[in-house]
């Protein structure tokens, strides 16, 4: 079965939203720990981070949020953040406390393969990654590879990136690890098309927007994605 990951920003409503996302069919939750200067993020996640910070969602509060989500859902939880938070908190301490609070792994958007190799985390690869970098990321990653479908920041796009097929095909020749595609996936059509190529998808910006309408809207949205990716027919890539 294809994996469906949903990104939510840490906040007071997050445990309830995570539960709704899992009811809708999410089988992994990425939890945004907000950073003041999120370089990789588009306007939706940037604004969500600004609001979360204004509401006091600092590292300790985010770890508590993670633990609360852990109490509500059984799927893997993966904090996604930026290096500055780990610098301040301590890399090892952050990893240990996140694990203790229920995290399955970590994603650090501005820590590419090669930087801080001792920190176990899910590595991102991009269409611009060379085969050498794909190999390095595959060697260092924690369980699966996060495929950035496009060159650019997070955020919904009209069409699925044409770069994904090539990236999946290159990654398959290098690793047998599961590949999850994210950035720019928001509609059921894109979800289906991406999951015909990759082993799973990540939905971020659109999930954040829908989550603003409440848990029910999020559950319904996630279930349309679930249905779309479950109907995906694996594409043959050469």
């Amino acid at each position: 079965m294809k994996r469906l990951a949903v990104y939510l920003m840490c906040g007071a409503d997050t445990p309830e939203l995570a539960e709704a996302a899992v009811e809708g069919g999410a089988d992994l939750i990425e939890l945004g720990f907000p950073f003041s200067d999120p370089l990789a993020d588009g306007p939706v996640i940037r604004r969500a981070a600004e609001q979360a910070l204004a509401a006091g969602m600092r590292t300790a509060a985010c770890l508590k949020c993670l633990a609360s989500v852990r109490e509500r859902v059984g799927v893997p939880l993966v904090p996604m953040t930026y290096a500055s938070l780990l610098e301040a908190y301590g890399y090892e301490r952050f990893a240990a406390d996140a694990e203790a609070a229920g995290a399955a792994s970590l994603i650090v958007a501005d820590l590419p393969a090669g930087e801080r190799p001792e920190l176990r985390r899910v590595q991102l690869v991009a269409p611009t990654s060379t085969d050498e970098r794909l190999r390095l990321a595959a060697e260092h990653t924690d369980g699966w590879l996060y495929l950035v479908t496009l060159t650019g920041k997070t955020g919904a796009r009209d069409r699925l990136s044409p770069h994904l097929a090539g990236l999946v095909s290159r990654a398959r020749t290098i690793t047998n690890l599961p590949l999850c595609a994210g950035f720019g996936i928001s509609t059921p059509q894109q979800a289906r098309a991406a999951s015909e190529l990759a082993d799973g998808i990540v939905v971020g910006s659109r999930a954040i927007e829908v989550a603003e309408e409440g848990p029910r809207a999020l559950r319904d949205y996630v279930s349309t994605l679930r249905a779309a990716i479950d109907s995906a027919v694996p594409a043959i890539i050469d």
Partner: protein
Amino acid sequence: MSVGLYGAYGGRYVPETLVPALDELAQAWAAAQEDEAFRNELDGLLVTYAGRPTPLTLAERFVPGKRLYLKREDLLHTGAHKLNNALGQALLAIRLGKQRIVAETGAGQHGVAVATVCARFGLECAVHMGAEDMRRQRPNVERIRLLGAEVRPVEFGTQTLKEATSEAVRDWLATVETSYYLIGSCVGPHPYPEMVRELQSVIGTEAREQILEAEGRLPDAAVACVGGGSNAIGLFSGFLDDDVRLVGVEAEGAASLVRGRPGVLHGARSSLLADEDGQVLDAHSSAPGLDYPGVGPEHAFLRDTGRAEYVSVGDAEALEAFRRLSRTEGIIPALEPAHALAHVAKHDVELVVLCLSGRGDKDLAEVVGL
């Protein structure tokens, strides 16, 4: 595995998408430095287009009792040291076959320098600038547009250099295959800090020769203002191996070296204005070019090793120095080097070389209002 380290600082903290481009840039930069044709073309442009060498002027009336020499980067074409860097990087962009240049700007001096070189070489140019900086540096916005570049207002967060830099990086993320990111200071991921330092080292190299010529000895101190730190690192690089005190002057409300903590911003580990959770704080300075919560990683390293010392000066003192230099020497400095000037008046050394990094025309409207 990490590259571009200055002690515990520097590195490459960027999304993976940019790593291959940074590798390509580092290789191209190394190759360009070995290439005599590149060096000759840049040196030629620095002379015939930019107006190098800039003079070293003895300021006799500004601080009586000291021998204060001003390295006159304000006399460089476009009115600030920024052109040294913009010219070098534009030649590199051309070598890499990039037709579009992305840049950030704070005071607008870097934006003007980039727009200038893009006009000179026929390159497309997008300058990201905070809406607040666009308001307080209106003449530079108009200059950038007149030079044919696009100014992209950044209307969130602090609406100053920090957010402009983030937006320039996001622009580059989306267009990395066709665009070159022409960063304006010795900040950012490797190889930018090293590249910008080398391109600005012409300030220190000339200043060293000129002071030896004028005084027959090295200065007691080399002083420069520090925002991101490019004019300072350029000046310091000429005196690093000498028995010369190196003094960097930050703005009181943007003192990332005097009051910062280690953190990661815009691709590098350095000393930052950040809270205990690593969230970057807003900087505040009347000088937009200093209004930045980060600083180049090499400065953090020079501070820790004790090779350079860093102090801070407030808006009011800087403004006073701005007015005094205008009246005593007939030179209107930019508000940024006015911070360095304010410090020199208090500094207990006799012979000083100070980098007058830019001219003050851009600041007149703000200063009259202050």
